[in-house]
């Protein structure tokens, strides 16, 4: 004989389970959607940083060339470009001498590589040959995670590489 009571009970539990599963999917969807939006906007921010790196290095070339032509500096070398790059990076992202910004969205920048190649060499980031004067820069950008700062600190660290061909800068 069919026990109708237990049938009703199990039907009710099944409905409840179904609702919980559906709500679980809604929560998961919100998390995934938020993550996708976050990643997309962080990518966009990193892209502006990359364009900014190009702008700074191009400015360095033009500014130092002008100083050289006016006799204000005797030579243009890697250190002169590096000092200009670091100075403008500090201004643009409100960084201190250790390139840290404290409680800001971009909280730290590391200059991982900064080279001025004048001869033939190979770019160790892209693996491509460099055969003209080039400023090669790679920075690490630490973005402040909104939640779980310690856990996500490594996930929110981005490396950006940018080469600037010195002779191609418009004068």
């Amino acid at each position, binding site marked *: 004989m069919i026990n109708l*009571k237990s049938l*009703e009970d199990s039907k009710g539990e099944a409905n409840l389970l179904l*609702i919980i599963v559906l709500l679980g999917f809604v929560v998961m969807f*919100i998390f995934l959607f*938020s993550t996708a939006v976050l990643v997309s906007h962080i990518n966009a921010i990193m892209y502006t940083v990359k364009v900014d790196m190009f702008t700074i290095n191009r400015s360095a070339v033009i500014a130092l060339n002008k100083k050289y032509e006016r006799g204000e500096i005797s030579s243009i070398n890697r250190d002169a470009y590096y000092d200009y790059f670091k100075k403008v990076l500090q201004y643009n992202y409100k960084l201190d001498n250790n390139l840290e910004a404290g409680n800001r*969205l971009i909280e730290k920048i590391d200059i991982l590589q900064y080279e001025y190649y004048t001869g033939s060499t190979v770019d160790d980031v892209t693996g491509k040959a460099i055969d003209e004067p080039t400023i090669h820069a790679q920075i690490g950008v630490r973005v402040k995670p909104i939640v779980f700062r310690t856990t996500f600190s490594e996930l929110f660290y981005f490396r950006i590489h940018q080469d600037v061909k010195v002779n191609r800068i418009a004068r």
Partner: protein
Amino acid sequence: MFSIKSSRGSTALTTPLVIAISLFFIALLLVFCVNALMPFIWYEKLSSHSLKYIFVMEEYGYLTPDERNNLLIELASSGFDTDNVTISATVTPIEYGEPIFLEIVYNYDMVTPALNEGSLSTTEQNSTVVMNVSRQSISKR
């Protein structure tokens, strides 16, 4: 005989309760996610606008009044409250190779719902997030 009342009664009560509690937490989660994302979204917009206008400034050697107005119009069309926007920039023409700067500060009013103590009603908590985007380049005029 069987009693259908007791079993139907328990699920009839629990199901809406579970849904209500879950929806409440989902709403909280949504608010949390939106609040966590908004600073990134506004900063990215501000950063893109500043980058565009530093390129414009390079051509003129400074931020012309017309371009300043265009910048404000673009910020407004992107959803910024222009009353909370402060623009500082090079305002006189600069010669080729000399530095120019642009700084946009936006005071973003973040509204967070908060539970009132001892009740299920909510109030709004306002906090201001100051976003500051600076760009330095050189004049190409």
